[in-house]
């Protein structure tokens, strides 16, 4: 285990560690030390703390975590969609050679929808109820290209066909409420990819859909990624989806990364009790109807625990001597060349627990 936390004035645990992606290729998006704080009447909400990651061209990074773990907020910050109102954003976001944090909002706007696009959880509320899908697609084209309405419409039709909308030439004049949930999400995908962006951020794209449709949408995203070479940041709490599509995974908890690594390692050699808990919560064939939920509730982002943010829910915290889990926040340390985790347990302890509990098997 190598600690890489020596060169900073920051408290070691706050130091952000950039875990290199396991795949070769050119880095498209590099997030460093990203923190987002919302000031509210109740105090500062630390929604994201010192998050760092890289996404290479054509690769998929999955960000996993429960509600309020900061996965959506960090992506909205990357897209420049948090506004300047109550959100306080610090850190660096390098995208396609440009620094986005602190740059002119107008420059970031010009990238949105053109070079980086986003799809959302609930496609019904994410599409404007009063405009036809054709009009909303045309608008997406014309926001960035000086083309005629007819040309934009032709492009819209092409994309609708590509995402598998049946009889698209008729459907293009439908309103969102006339389509099914799966079709709406296909429209959202068509709209996001219409300008062939380098990066697609998919914020729980299947959560609001029927289970049968979920697989189709994920399948579609994977096909389109292959075809267009789009890098995808997939925000989800569905580990099944992660196993299907992700190259790298970040597990987020309480606003910061709890564990990060290549998808195989996260599933087969997880290094952090929270990840263990997530994996045990997936139904398996041999479970005989028994799931192991993680006890307790997520931490308050206003009053984060002083020690490990996961300690209050961690059943292994007592194995760490000196009550360190309660008093000292663990550093984000590398456990392998492309793998890092935030845990006070020693490598031996973790290995023993994994073996005893058949985690990752």
């Amino acid at each position: 285990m190598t600690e890489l936390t020596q060169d900073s004035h920051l408290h070691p645990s706050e130091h952000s560690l950039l875990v290199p992606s396991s795949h070769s290729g050119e880095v498209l998006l590099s997030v460093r030390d990203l923190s987002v704080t919302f000031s509210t009447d109740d105090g500062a909400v630390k929604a994201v703390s010192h998050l760092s990651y890289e996404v290479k061209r054509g690769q998929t990074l999955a960000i996993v975590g429960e509600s309020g773990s900061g996965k959506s907020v960090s992506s909205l910050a990357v897209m420049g969609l948090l506004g300047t109102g109550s959100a306080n954003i610090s850190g660096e976001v390098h995208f396609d050679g440009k620094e986005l944090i602190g740059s002119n909002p107008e420059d970031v706007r010009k990238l949105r929808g053109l070079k980086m696009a986003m799809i959302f959880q609930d496609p019904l509320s994410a599409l404007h109820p009063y405009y036809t899908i054709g009009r909303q697609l045309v608008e997406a084209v014309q926001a960035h290209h000086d083309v005629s309405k007819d040309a934009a419409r032709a492009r819209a039709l092409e994309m609708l066909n590509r995402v598998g909308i049946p009889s698209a030439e008729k459907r293009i004049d439908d309103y969102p409420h006339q389509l099914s949930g799966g079709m709406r999400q296909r429209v959202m995908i068509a709209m996001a990819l219409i300008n062939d962006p380098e990066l697609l951020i998919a914020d729980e794209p299947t959560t609001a859909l029927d289970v049968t449709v979920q697989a189709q949408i994920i399948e579609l995203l994977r096909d389109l990624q292959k075809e267009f070479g789009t890098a995808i940041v997939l925000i989800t709490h569905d580990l099944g989806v992660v196993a299907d599509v992700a190259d790298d995974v970040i597990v987020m908890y309480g606003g910061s990364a709890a564990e990060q690594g290549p998808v195989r390692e996260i599933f087969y050699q997880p290094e952090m009790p929270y990840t263990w808990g997530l994996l045990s919560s997936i139904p398996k064939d041999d479970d005989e109807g028994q799931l192991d939920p993680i006890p307790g509730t997520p931490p308050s982002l206003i009053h984060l625990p002083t020690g490990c943010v996961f300690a209050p829910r961690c059943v292994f915290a007592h194995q760490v001597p000196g009550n360190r889990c309660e008093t000292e926040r663990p550093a984000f340390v590398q456990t392998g060349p492309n793998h890092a985790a935030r845990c006070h347990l020693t490598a031996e302890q973790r290995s023993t627990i994994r073996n005893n509990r058949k985690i990752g098997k």
Partner: protein
Amino acid sequence: MLFALSIITYLLFYALPRDPARLMCGTHCTPDSLAAYRVELGLDFPIYQQYLNWLHAIFFGKDISVGPFPLHCAAPCFGFSNDRNEMVFIMIARVMPVTAYLALGAFILWMVVGVLTGILAARYKGSIFDRSVMATTLVGFSLPSFFIGLVIMIFVVVRWQLVPYPDYKPPTEDFGKFIGALILPWITLAILYAAYYTRLTRSQMLDTMNEDFIRTARAKGLPEKVVVRKHAFRAGLTPIVTSAGLDFAGLLGGAIITEKIFGLNGLGSVALTAVAKLDLPVLVAVTLLGAVFVVVANLVVDILYAVIDPRVRIK
């Protein structure tokens, strides 16, 4: 709907304990003349028959004998006003344009000012502009129209003499005087309503700006002004249209206080006089007319809903 309205309106006034015949009879009333008035007014019929007669007159007209001279009251006949010595419908048709111009001008003024200010206040929420707008509208909102009207009248007309004393002329006759007479009442009404519409628009805009589809519009890379104008405003429009329709209809029914202050002889003034003199045919007609405006406004609002929101349209 309108039919039900007419029944209610009619009953409201004619079934009152007040005896219309006694009113017409005046101070030198003998039982004989009272009975004669009863027959003349058709009050010797049962109430439903009276109503049907009244309704019949609206569609087909009727003959009225006032004293020795028989008069024909052409359809639509709402009866004869003894107080004004004139057919009710003809009188209303004469004063209606004044009220209509007053309502229309004020409506346009307050909608433009209120909605635009509301949008800007929402867009720059929390700014000094927003705060001062909110403070101003609170004041405008709390002032009764007779206060605003009187203050404007006293200062602008009497003290500073910026505008001559209102002397209403139809726009076709003397456009300058027309504007001169209406500009202050317009402003009076507009202050009151613009304050309300600013607040309504602002809160609507703030609500819709939090919608998911606004985030989508921004994620598409649309400029903020397009997001506000095309996406947020359109979605927040429905309650504004509802209020606007009803308020406009309400004003068409007569802005009693404002008309009185600025000496405009519109529907409001007519209604006020009719109440004071218990001039029943006029009262019924004005009330019915006001109700008709509200019903029609509701219909127009419903049609506009369908234009604005495709989900409301019936396939």
